[in-house]
């Protein structure tokens, strides 16, 4: 299928899209502000995948490679928006690692994440879900690693509050 995509075979491209579009759309939803923006990110990401698939060296997971392209596409979009990442004191970090409400479904969780302020959301996604370190996030977003940490703390705190509110409603 990948080789077919390298040959620009439309059938293989379609198959690849069908296989990965759902997961990649979740990635886009995490970074986007709304559904339309997520669709745009997905579209742009797949166009980049199809045009650069020949650069895939068949080392490691292809899905991971596609995911990185999606994240990069999202970040590119973010850089255009010039989001300001405010810094928080280091001492405040380490507090929030766990969220009280564990029965949260994927969709609810996605919704909560998408409701975070954009800067928080990006750092939270990059660190918690996509597994980048603060140094990497700093380089990607052209911010200080400490700023990334502070954004993460804020994001966690806000997410926890949101989950708590959700729990109250559920009870």
């Amino acid at each position, binding site marked *: 299928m990948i080789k077919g995509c390298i040959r620009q075979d439309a059938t293989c491209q*379609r*198959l690849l899209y069908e296989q990965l579009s759902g*997961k990649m759309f979740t990635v886009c939803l995490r970074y986007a502000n709304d559904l339309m923006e997520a*669709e745009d990110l997905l*579209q742009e990401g797949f166009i980049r995948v199809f045009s650069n698939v020949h650069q895939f060296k068949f080392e490691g997971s292809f899905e991971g490679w596609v995911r990185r392209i999606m994240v990069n596409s999202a970040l590119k979009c973010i850089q255009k928006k010039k989001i300001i990442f405010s810094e928080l004191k280091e001492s405040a970090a380490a507090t929030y690692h766990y*969220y*009280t409400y564990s029965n949260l479904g994927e969709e609810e969780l996605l919704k909560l994440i998408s409701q975070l302020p954009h800067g928080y959301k990006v750092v939270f996604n990059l660190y918690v*879900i996509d597994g980048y370190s603060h140094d990497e996030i700093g380089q990607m977003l052209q911010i200080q690693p400490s700023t990334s940490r502070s954004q993460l703390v804020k994001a966690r705190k806000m997410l926890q509050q949101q*989950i708590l509110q959700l729990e109250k409603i559920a009870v």
Partner: protein
Amino acid sequence: MLSDKEIKDKLNNYSSPVSERVWQNIVVEQQKNKSIIQNYFTGARLSFFVGLLLTTVTLGYIIKQQSNRSVNLANSSGLLTQKTNQNITQNIFFNNYSKQNKELEQKVAFGESKLNSPLTSSNGVSKIKIDKNATVKNTNQLIPNNKFYTSSSVNTNVYTATESINNNTTDNYKSGNDSYHSTVDNISNSNLHSEELNIQENNQSNLIKGTTEKVFLLTTLPLAKIANQKLSYKLYQNTEPLECPGEYSSYKKNWYVEGFIAPEYVMKKVYSNNPANDAYLSKKDSVEKMVAGISIGAKFTRGLSKNLYIKGGLQYNQMIEKTSLMMEKERKEITVITINTVTDINGNTVTVADTSKQLQITYARSVNYNSIKSIELPISLGYEFYRKNFRASVNAGFIVNLSSWYSGKIFDTSYQMVNIKERPGIYKQNVGLSLYGSISLIKPLSESAEIFAEPYFRYSLTNPKYNAYGFKQKFNAVGLSMGLRFKLNKNYSSRTFN
């Protein structure tokens, strides 16, 4: 409690539903984003251009070979060089020049002379006319006389010709494409009665210039025995054989142009490697049916060898596809009241009304005719067989689909008929390649016109359009090409016996 890891696990593998329009936009954007060069020089199209380049080079080589029929005599070895087109350049080295009445020996040495008219002869007089600009070098010792003339300053590589001259006067010196061969024959057969040589001598420059009507009379140029073997070889190698009626000596010069119209029976093949498409393809197959096709075009034909011909041209092809789908038009719920008369034991008659509801569905057959139009480049090689007043040839080649476009409605994966224009990206105008095989039956109508019929088969190698739904389609066809063929080079004889 929900940890970071659990959030990651939950969202990493979660698949969100995606709208179909995203894929359609991707397809459209991909088309837009491709550069013009990328769009144009796809693999098949690139192959076509390479093939076209090779064909052009081959044709160019053939044409060049044709134009090289003039005789070139290498002056470096003292040979007579003559180009027999409009401008004749002739380098003749004379060493000795002598004449006798019946048997003449002529040894002539020219430094260099340029002629712009062919050798001529009349009344047994052979002439080489020199124009105003003609120059003769190293000929200051050349004096027309009936004696031997010897040049002391001539080139050591001299052309020497000695031959008995027959009593034969000729006027039939040929010009143009006639080669030196015929000239030599004529010269050698000429009977010398007189000779004239009017050459202005330029003592200072050691050049002799011919005036307007300055004529070399080389009437005594007997060339049957050519001293120089190289000259002899060159003369015959470059000589165009004389054309005889009914012979195929000029086969390489035969150029034809033909116009044709070809009704086709088209066979469509739809297939997919994905078993998930089987149900859809089965339905699609029952809905779509090829009706007919037609090709109209023109081809040029050029002889390559005695029996071999190459053909190339341009054609327009149109295939008609009929789609017929029974579609639900209306759905009605009808109340049916059935009245029955029932008689009980006592003889009382009771009327009973049964009410039932029926669903009435109205279907309508939707019929559409689609057009698949293409501009194509047919290239083929043919091998011809001859009979009196009849020729046949077997042809094989390929047809390059330069561009194609589809109009009408297609059977969509939603099992509905959808206008193709509403679904961009489903079909792509790209290059396709088909193999082509045919048998031509040719009947001459006149010296320059022929009528032909050519049953053929074309087999599609590549899919001229690709479908975003994950299936492919090919169009194979059998047809009968009929048309007229006209010879472009009327000066040359027909390939048929008359």
